[in-house]
């Protein structure tokens, strides 16, 4: 089951780390960065059902 509630101890720190990682990247670089990031996190999550649910929610 895809977690819907907050799972971060320091949400503002993590959010800004993710956003700031895109600073200075052009559109194409952003897409490439996000693709690598998503694949890393997807593998870390591992649970295919969760990944498929997230894919569905992100498309909604």
């Amino acid at each position, binding site marked *: 089951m895809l977690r*819907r509630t907050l799972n*971060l101890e320091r*949400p503002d720190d993590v*959010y800004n780390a993710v956003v700031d990682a895109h*600073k200075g990247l052009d559109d194409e670089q952003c897409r490439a960065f996000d693709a690598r990031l998503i694949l890393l996190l997807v593998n870390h999550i591992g649970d295919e059902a969760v990944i498929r649910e997230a894919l569905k929610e992100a498309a909604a």
Partner: protein
Amino acid sequence: MGGAGEEGLSSYDYRHYPYRRPAELDGPGERRPVVIVGAGLAGPTLALLLAARSVPSLVLDEDDTVSLGSRSICQAKHSLEIWDRFGIAQRMVDKGITWEQGEVYLRDQAIYRFNLQPEPGHKFPAFVNLQQYYVEEFLYDRCLAEPLIELRVRNKVVGVQQRNDGVTVEVETPDGNYSLEADWLVACDGVRSAVRHLLGLPYPGEVFHDQFLIADIRMKGDLPKERRFWFYPPFHPTNSVLLHRQADDVMRADFQLGRDADPEEEKKPENVNRRLRQMFGPDARWEHEWTSVYTFTCRMMERFMHGRTIFVGDAAHVVSPFGARGGNAAVADADNLAWKLALVLGGQAPVSLLDSYDSERRAASRENILNSTRSTDFITPKFPAARAFRDATLALAKDFPFARALINSGRLSVPTTQSGSPLDTPDADGDWAGGPAPGRAMVDAPLGRGWLIDRLGRDFTLLAFGGPIVAPAGVTAVDVGEETLALQRYDARPGTTYLIRPDRYVAARWRKFDQAAVATSVARAMGKEATCFGER
């Protein structure tokens, strides 16, 4: 006092405080222990906190009335608790608008509601909205009733000369110039600090280019008390809007205009009214109190102490308005400084104690600037990817609680954490599951028929949760007993003891009372080496 460059249409009756010819114009005056420059929020608060410790001060201000127009409005709980020590916080609560909840909207839908103080059992609410001119008026009234404070209006500092043991201040008045000798000069003279300029000190930081329109309007009807924040509302579809209610039925609408707006065009009454009409609907009626277009900066001095000159409030650090971290930080600065300055002047603590004002309040400023910059970046994303993440967060917020927690429309001012301060004694017992650790502000709780904050001493306080304690000389002991909420808030068990600093931060805590350990921690919190007390 003063500061804003624009004339308001405010219905507030600006009182002018009387100028008197200073005695120093007719012959040298006595040396002053403390001269405070600037009578905004920080200056008078500091003067009152010093007076409570029998330290006289002279407050100089270049004009003769309170802050013009729109400045700080959200007075935080921790500021109210400080002002309560000289009996003016209730007046602010009575006059202002108490609020604890905020609502965030995306387009026309409410997506997130937060409560800043969900739990009852505090003497003061999370926030009271009160225009700065009222807060200053209440502070001046209290200062004028205080024999240890001399408030001189239309006294402008035009020269500062630092010496090893004091400062010479050159002051301009309508009757000519005079000079003053002071042991300590405290600059509370705002973001454009004359003292900082006179000493040639830099003020590094970040400039933000987004423009915002403030419209303070007086309205009748059923006005919302909570803070409201809109992303892309129908009445301002390209940007964000913040709405606060203030005293006297005044509403503050704050429209994000973007970088390219023409401020003169936006300020025109017909344009302001068009925006307000879209926001409040065809039947609403209002009168204008104040209109301005602003941008902001986040800046911080490299050091807040320069020889015998100490910088406080906006003179030392400045943030964006999101989060109410300007005025409230200035008041917290004053509280951090007052007791230390009094102990140093009284010879009870070494001068080096003041170094901790610099380190603790610079850490607080960094925390405030970080929070305010993050809010600003969320509200006004700086690059396309940042905007994409922001908009994704908003899009997910309706269905996903985690995304609501990420929405940053302002992380509202709470006491900052000064972890690692050399004044504090780190926890020795590892079994704390809660409660304010050393370096955190103490928290209020009901106690008997009153409140814990009302029982604290002027200096250090030992909070004991059952069990006999022996407080060192000059330390107030408070037996909290078995008050349920206090026990919870302090993660207390029988024997738990907290040492609270005069500025109501936790200096140390123990699971078991230990007289020698308390004495050591008190000495440490006063900036003395533990060996001074080792002989006892």
